[in-house]
Structures are given as structure tokens and as C-alpha cells.
């Protein structure tokens, strides 16, 4: 995926564009796969109940399938978000040394291990907070789906 974006970078000269493309590429497929698995795993019983109550195709999709696969949608969003953060830092390290990536490179060149480690810790925390935020949102929006 990363190498994919290197391939795209000549096509997208703007720094932000190529970085956004990398983030997109890295999170898009994770989300796609997770949501597809969720839709496939919808309890067939739910759909049968919907059908026997005379729901048409549209209602089956919006009222049964969508709510039933929401937990997977959230899982996909979480995985995608973490991947996106990874992609962001990768892009900043490799093809446009700006922001945190540039800071890391600078610290590495100075052999400033403390500085380097602090950026890594910051990134860890960012990932954790992002995950925690989405988890909290999931708990509020999908109270019926309690995670073990």
C-alpha cells in the first residue's frame, strides 16, 4: 500500500494530496473488508423475520441489514483510523518531511533519542485516544452491542 502511494506521488504533486491518497489507500480496504464481513454475517433469522413481516428489499437493507452490521462498521472505522494514522506518519517520514515526520527525522539525525522516543510515545497516545474515542462513541450509539 505504501509503495502504491509512492507510485501515485508523481501523479499528485501537492504534498497534502499524495499524503491524503496514502491515508485513503491504507484505510479504505480495511474498512471495505470489515464491513463486507459484517454484512455477510448478518443473522439469517433477522432477515427471515423481516421478510415474513412483508418488508421490501429497501426496508430489509435499511432496517435490518444496516443496524445488524453496525458493530462491524465501527470495527472497520477503528481499524481504518489506526491504519490512517500509520499512513500519515509513513507519508511524513518518506515523501514529504513535514510535521511529526520531520521532527522525527531531525531528532534521529541529532541522535536525540529522548526526542525521538517522545514522538513515538505521542503517536502511541494518539492511536490509543483515537481508538478509545471511537469505542466510547460505539458504546453510546450501539448500546445493545456490548463488547466483552
Amino acid at each position, binding site marked *: 500500500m505504501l*509503495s502504491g502511494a509512492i507510485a501515485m506521488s508523481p501523479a499528485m504533486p501537492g504534498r497534502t494530496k499524495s499524503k491524503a491518497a496514502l491515508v485513503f489507500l491504507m484505510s479504505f480496504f480495511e474498512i471495505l473488508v470489515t464491513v463486507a464481513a459484517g454484512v455477510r454475517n448478518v443473522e439469517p433469522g433477522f432477515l427471515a423475520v423481516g421478510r415474513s413481516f412483508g418488508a421490501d428489499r429497501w426496508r430489509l437493507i435499511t432496517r435490518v441489514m444496516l443496524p445488524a452490521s453496525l458493530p462491524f462498521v465501527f470495527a472497520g472505522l477503528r481499524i481504518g483510523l489506526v491504519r490512517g494514522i500509520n499512513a500519515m*506518519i509513513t507519508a511524513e517520514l518518506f515523501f514529504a518531511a513535514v510535521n511529526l515526520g520531520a521532527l522525527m527525522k531531525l531528532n534521529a539525525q541529532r541522535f536525540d533519542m529522548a526526542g525521538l522516543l517522545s514522538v513515538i510515545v505521542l503517536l502511541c497516545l494518539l492511536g490509543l485516544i483515537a481508538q478509545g474515542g471511537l469505542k466510547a462513541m460505539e458504546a453510546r450509539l450501539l448500546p445493545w452491542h456490548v463488547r*466483552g
Partner: protein
Amino acid sequence: MSRRIAYNLAGVAIALLLWEAIGRLMGEALFAPLSVVLVEYVKMLGDGQMLGELVGSLRQMLVGYVLACVVGLPIGVGMGRSRLLDALLHPWLSMLVVTSVASLVPLFVIVFGTGFWFRAVIVFLAAVWYVMLTIYHGARGIEPRLLDVGRSFGAPPLTRFHKIILPALYPYVVTALRIGLVHAIRAMVVAEMFIILGYGGLIYRASYSLTTAPLLGLLLTLMIVGVAANAALQRGTRVLAPWYEDKMGRSAPPL
């Protein structure tokens, strides 16, 4: 079934046609069309540098990957079955699994240099947390009823472990190996692009060439390797444990 294969082929054909069209539209310098890449690809195969670097890189990746599996699987199972281990290690696991490997690369270049161990360690760190997490979810989700049956038939803990827990873990082991492999291959390329050595280095240097054909060719090989490795692992499962076929195809990798 044959209908499905026909649709698959149609999907591939549409993607390839789109590639050709976009390539023609954007020009070789930005996004080489399929026809140009294929010609270049045959040349690269004949030249031998691409495959040589690939074999060398994969060998180093394999060391890191095998280490990740050897370390990750037992710890993951331990965490899944023991509350104490889970409480001790889980915060670290969830923190490290969200840490980008790319961010560790500059640090490890300083610590390990750019030799064999640098790449092996990066690959190890990229794969081990995913292997651990996947098998952890598997170990936690074992039906308690199965264990109860074992207990009521008086099976000692060791027998319960290898007669009940291990077989129940089997599909998760394969999933963990597959997820780990994907991350290992990615990490290999990221690490090598940073130090401009091996296959990743080849990709990096190719990105400075005037045409994007060699670059896309290198990516093509990488994709083929990933898909082939995945298929081989899946095939291995089918031979070793045919009864898990269904479960494997349907269950999503947990995170």
C-alpha cells in the same frame, strides 16, 4: 460456481482496462499503462535484479516473521486463558498494536544500523502484535462448555489443553499467521525504503525514474507475492484441517 469465476474474471478484466485507459490518459511519466508495464515487466524478469533482491528481502523478512509467530502465539494464548497475564499485558498490547512501525524505523536505524537485524526486528515488531491479538481473541472465545465436558470426564489440565484448547484454536492460528504475514511484508518494504536497500530500496530508486513502468512492475511482483503467500497458507489449512474450511472463509479477523 463457474458463474462466479466468470464474474471474477470480468472484474479483473474491467480493472485492467481501466488501468490501460487511465495510463493512456495520464501518460507514462505519471501512471504507465498496462501494455507498457507488461513489456517492462518481462524485461525486468529477464534482467534478474528484481527477483534476486526479492529473494534476499524475503529471507530476512521470514526470520522476523517466524520469530513473531514463535513469540506471539504462546503469549497470545496465555493472555487469552489467564486473567492475570491478560491484566498484566493487555494495556501494552493495545498500545503497541496502534503504534505505527514506520515511526519506529528511525529509532531502530540508530540502534541496529541497517543490517540484517534491523530489518528482522522491524518485521518482528510489525507482525508480533497482530499475531498475538488474533490468537488472544481466539483463546478467549473458546466455548466454556467444551472445557466443562473435558473437566467432567476428569481430563487433567494438560490433556484439556492439547485435546480441547489447541484444536479450538486452530482456525485462529491460521488467521493469525495470515494477518501477521501481510504486516510482515509491508514492514519489510517500509524498512527497506527507509534505508534504500533490498527490494524496498529498489522500489524507492524506481520512483525517481522518468517512467513509472518499472515502479508499477515492482508493485505487481509484491502483490503477486502477497496473494501467493496468502493462498499457500489457506491451502495448507485445507490440507491440515479440512473441517475448518467454512469457518475460515466467513469469520472476519478480529481486532
